[in-house]
């Protein structure tokens, strides 16, 4: 199938050790047929599939570098609205049925719980393999420019430090944090984001521009760097 579908709730019933570990690479059609549903607007997946093939061919498996290369391309070739992208059913379709090979290429099986999250997770950022790439790109892209997307994935600690926090919902805050911290080391990133988050608990983000937030982030970062 080269069109996007979605899977209904309850698909996790098909989550087995065999599938998650890769012993069984794909689920049988008869098993998941009953969960397939059409999406409101047709989206072709040919471009997406080509992108995924290129990423798999061009990257070493189980490395974080895959995210940096894949995220902009996944976002570009899946022209979803935010409303569509908030539908967990489409992400489950893409990871469990359409391209489980990409999930296995990115993540090494180390436990059932861990792999279940990568195939069947959704909602929280660091779960579903493709959901996390698409949303990271959505929140860092600027008019078709994905340079911040690539920068945020230079370090997993940066992407987690930002997306684990409420401020990730406010794009100017995401942009500011990525620009200010993408060249910092893990220790500086984690301490800076912890303090920035604390400072921002009394500030209403929506009322602040990117420049306002930059002042806070850079100020805190400089303090942290001087202390460490």
């Amino acid at each position: 199938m080269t069109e996007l579908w979605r899977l209904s709730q309850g698909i996790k019933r098909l989550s087995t050790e065999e599938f998650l570990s890769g012993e069984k690479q794909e689920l049988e059609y008869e098993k998941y047929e009953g969960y397939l549903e059409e999406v409101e607007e047709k989206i072709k997946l040919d471009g997406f599939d080509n992108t995924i093939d290129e990423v798999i061919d061009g990257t070493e498996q189980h490395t974080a570098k895959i995210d940096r290369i894949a995220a902009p391309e996944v976002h570009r070739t899946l022209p979803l609205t935010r409303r569509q992208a908030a539908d967990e059913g489409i992400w489950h379709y893409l990871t469990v049925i359409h391209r489980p090979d990409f999930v296995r290429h990115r993540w090494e099986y180390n436990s059932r719980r861990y792999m279940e999250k990568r195939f069947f997770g959704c909602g929280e950022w660091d779960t579903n393999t493709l959901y996390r790439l698409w949303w990271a790109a959505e929140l860092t892209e600027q008019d078709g420019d994905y340079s911040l997307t690539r920068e945020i994935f230079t370090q997993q600690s940066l992407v987690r430090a930002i997306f684990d926090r409420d401020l990730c919902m406010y794009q100017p805050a995401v942009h500011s944090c990525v620009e200010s911290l993408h060249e910092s080391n893990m220790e500086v990133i984690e301490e800076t984001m912890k303090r920035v988050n604390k400072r921002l608990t009394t500030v209403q983000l929506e009322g602040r521009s990117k420049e306002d937030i930059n002042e806070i982030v850079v100020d805190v970062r400089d303090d942290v760097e001087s202390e460490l």
Partner: protein
Amino acid sequence: MESRSRSIQRRYLPYRYDKHGIDFSISSFRLDGGEKITDVNQERRLISLENRGKWDEVTVSGEIKIDQDVIDDVLPVEERLQPPVKIYIASRCEYTYLRESKLIDSPPVSLEGYDFSVTLSRNRLRNTASLKPYIIRTGDSNAETDEFATAKGVRLASSKSWEIRVDVQESPSGEYLEVLYDSFENKDYLPEGDQVYHLDFREAKNPTLWLNSDHEKITRVLDSRARRGPDARVRDVFFDQISQSVWTQLIVHAATNIDEEGEVRYDWEDSVLDRFINDIYPDTDENEARTKLSQDIMSKEKLPDITSRIDSALQTRLRCHENMTKVIEEALDD
């Protein structure tokens, strides 16, 4: 003053904050610029759009008012005549990672009140969104005070939010179950009384978890899709409590269907046993463990031991202690 957690700060910020200081009311809305619709639920502060057909934009209208009492409450004396504040309305949708704002007014703000309208695009929303007004400082203050906020951008007053329900309420996603809300009153397939949930095996191939929508406050927490903060933490602990019972029932049902070859009837039973059998009987071959489980579950003598094993397996797998710890940390410590 150092406050230790976000949940405490909401009740007790380190400066004066009037969380219900803004009079914020919504009177009507229009869909795609069409006729004015006044059917809004004032008591629940709710606009229901889920059964209004297809639309692309909703424009919500209402009034915002602040009075001098609020200004006097949150600003030092020298700033009260010309308050350095602006008023805006924040719109949020957790599902679509959306945080936006609409400026209502900058200094000098009026105490006469404002009519406002906010337009939201359906393409950027899913499930529910919220609108909430804020008054924030527009500049730093030189006042020497511990009582009032002095930094630019700090929030000073707000109001209860309004909810915009965009889609039919999605039940929480169950792993192996349909999870559905319904009133338990007068339903012959649901138990009477105050029960919060019921696991329904009438359709054995697809068991259903019913959540009792008569418990409005509980279902609102269970329905929260917050990713972090007190709402998320309390919801997770509630679900852990429900999960313990539900998983126990699922395991027992699956166990009673294990045949002599170690096979079960339904896919979900396979998945459930797959998931827990090694924790119920560690160091035992899986097939042997299934056979043992099917025997033990039928034995009067073995029943206390097997229930203890199942409980222990669930606590190991579900890691309830993590969510309990997060609730404690959110409430007491940042």
